[in-house]
């Protein structure tokens, strides 16, 4: 009778073959090294990119587990949140987490109408959390205590609040039960943004005093455009003005990237043309103007660095250098975490399939997706990473016709 502890014949054969392997000559070592490199070149990208095609195809078998994870996070956050964050960047993270949760779920609902009845209330839930006063506390403090909704008649931009405004617009588009009192505030905010944007010769709206970011202004344009879709209001004129200014003022002609930070009134460059701002601007621009978004995407993918089947986006345009910051995340070997992750959205929405696959492999390698209990989460990203990736990996249905 065969001993249960004995290895099988196949396992024994492999073990014996490996044990008997003689030390090779240097020529053989070189050939074996090349073979090992080839094996890694084939195996590692395949292993990291197994789900890329499913994400590109909008397969609910990959979308819904991540959606379930962000929905579960929102429920946990409801139970644990105690008050506003005193730190601007922590506040911005909270705002972006809820906004991106709403956008990602809304995009799935648009792509899969059968999920709409279930997801629409979740979209509203996340959008309303981003709308709360404590979520914009960082912006109120930056403007010396001036609340965005209490100063709609002023010329102060408060462009950071376009992020929740866009989420609320998507919720209004999908959820017939959206609270009417918040809808009225949203109408008034969008009217203020429209007036401020039309009054700006540079097509920029200040985020904080003296600081304007083309990316945040793209979020303003997106919020205005989605408001039009949700309510039937005509915003054609302001969106045309914004699209003209992006092309004429905000894009660096030599690199095709948008300038990260600019003077709102005179359009002077306050920072370099950068990948992180361009990639996120391309995503937001898609809500408002397909041509502008497509142009930003074309510029962005000129700065893709590829290696062994993996892709990443350079943070700085050639001739510019800098360190990582809150916008870019860590910059390693010239490529940034944020630019690379954000690029997934325009890659998917505008059919850059090869770039999408390469960048998804990088995202999976460093993001470390893990499935468990019917949910999927990216271990390295945490809640904000999951929310961002849900929105970016499902981008497409939200793009303006």
């Amino acid at each position: 009778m065969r001993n249960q502890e004995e290895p099988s014949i196949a396992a024994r054969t492999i073990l014996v073959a490996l044990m008997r392997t003689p030390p090779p000559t240097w020529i053989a070592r070189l050939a074996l090294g090349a073979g090992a490199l080839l094996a890694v070149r084939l195996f590692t990208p395949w292993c990291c990119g197994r789900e890329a095609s499913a994400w590109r195809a909008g397969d609910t078998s990959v979308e819904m587990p991540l959606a379930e994870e962000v929905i579960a996070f929102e429920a946990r956050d409801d139970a644990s949140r105690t008050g506003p964050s005193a730190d601007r960047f922590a506040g911005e993270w909270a705002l972006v987490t809820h906004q991106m949760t709403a956008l990602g779920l809304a995009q799935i609902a648009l792509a899969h109408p059968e999920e709409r009845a279930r997801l629409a209330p979740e979209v509203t839930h996340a959008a309303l959390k981003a709308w709360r006063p404590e979520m914009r506390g960082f912006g109120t403090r930056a403007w010396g205590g001036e609340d965005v909704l209490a100063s709609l008649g002023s010329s102060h931009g408060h462009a950071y609040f376009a992020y929740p405004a866009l989420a609320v617009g998507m919720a209004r588009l999908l959820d017939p039960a959206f609270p009417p009192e918040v809808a009225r505030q949203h109408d008034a905010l969008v009217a203020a943004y429209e007036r401020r944007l039309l009054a700006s010769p540079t097509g920029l709206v200040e985020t904080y005093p003296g600081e304007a970011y083309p990316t945040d202004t793209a979020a303003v344009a997106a919020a205005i455009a989605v408001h039009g879709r949700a309510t039937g209001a005509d915003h054609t004129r302001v969106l045309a003005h914004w699209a003209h200014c992006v092309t004429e003022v905000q894009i660096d002609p030599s690199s095709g990237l948008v300038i990260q930070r600019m003077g709102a009134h005179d359009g002077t460059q306050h920072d370099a043309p950068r990948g992180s701002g361009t990639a996120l601007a391309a995503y937001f621009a898609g809500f408002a103007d397909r041509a502008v978004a497509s142009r930003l995407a074309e510029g962005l993918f000129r700065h893709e660095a590829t290696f062994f089947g993996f892709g990443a986006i350079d943070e700085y345009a050639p001739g510019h250098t800098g360190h990582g910051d809150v916008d870019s995340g860590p910059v390693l070997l010239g490529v940034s975490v944020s630019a690379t992750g954000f690029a997934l959205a325009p890659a998917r929405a505008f059919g850059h399939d090869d770039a999408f696959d390469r960048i998804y492999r990088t995202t999976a390698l460093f993001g470390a997706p893990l499935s468990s209990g019917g949910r999927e989460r990216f271990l390295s990203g945490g809640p904000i990473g999951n929310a961002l990736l849900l929105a970016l990996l499902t981008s497409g249905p939200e793009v303006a016709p």
Partner: protein
Amino acid sequence: MIAARLRLLPRGVRAAAWIVGAYLVVLLAFAFATRTTGLLSPSGAPNVGVLALGAVFLVLRLAAYVVAPALLAYAGLGAIVSRAQAASSARHRGPGDGAVGRRRFR
């Protein structure tokens, strides 16, 4: 007995096994540590302990996805080449020459 046999495996295979084993252990620990907070929680400052664990996790993940397959491929291809050469030399020498499957490259 299995441990003794494993000690006879080429160093590359043993190193790959160690890398993958260590990666799986740290993966479990990191998945547990990030189940509610994450590296970049919007609720407050990043947790230094989770960040440190995350750094170890990412290094081991890279090793498990890049170094371990290379080591395994090197050892596996080496075994295949060695056996093929041994079989080839046995055919040329004919029966009775001995050392079948044991001839060294050098």
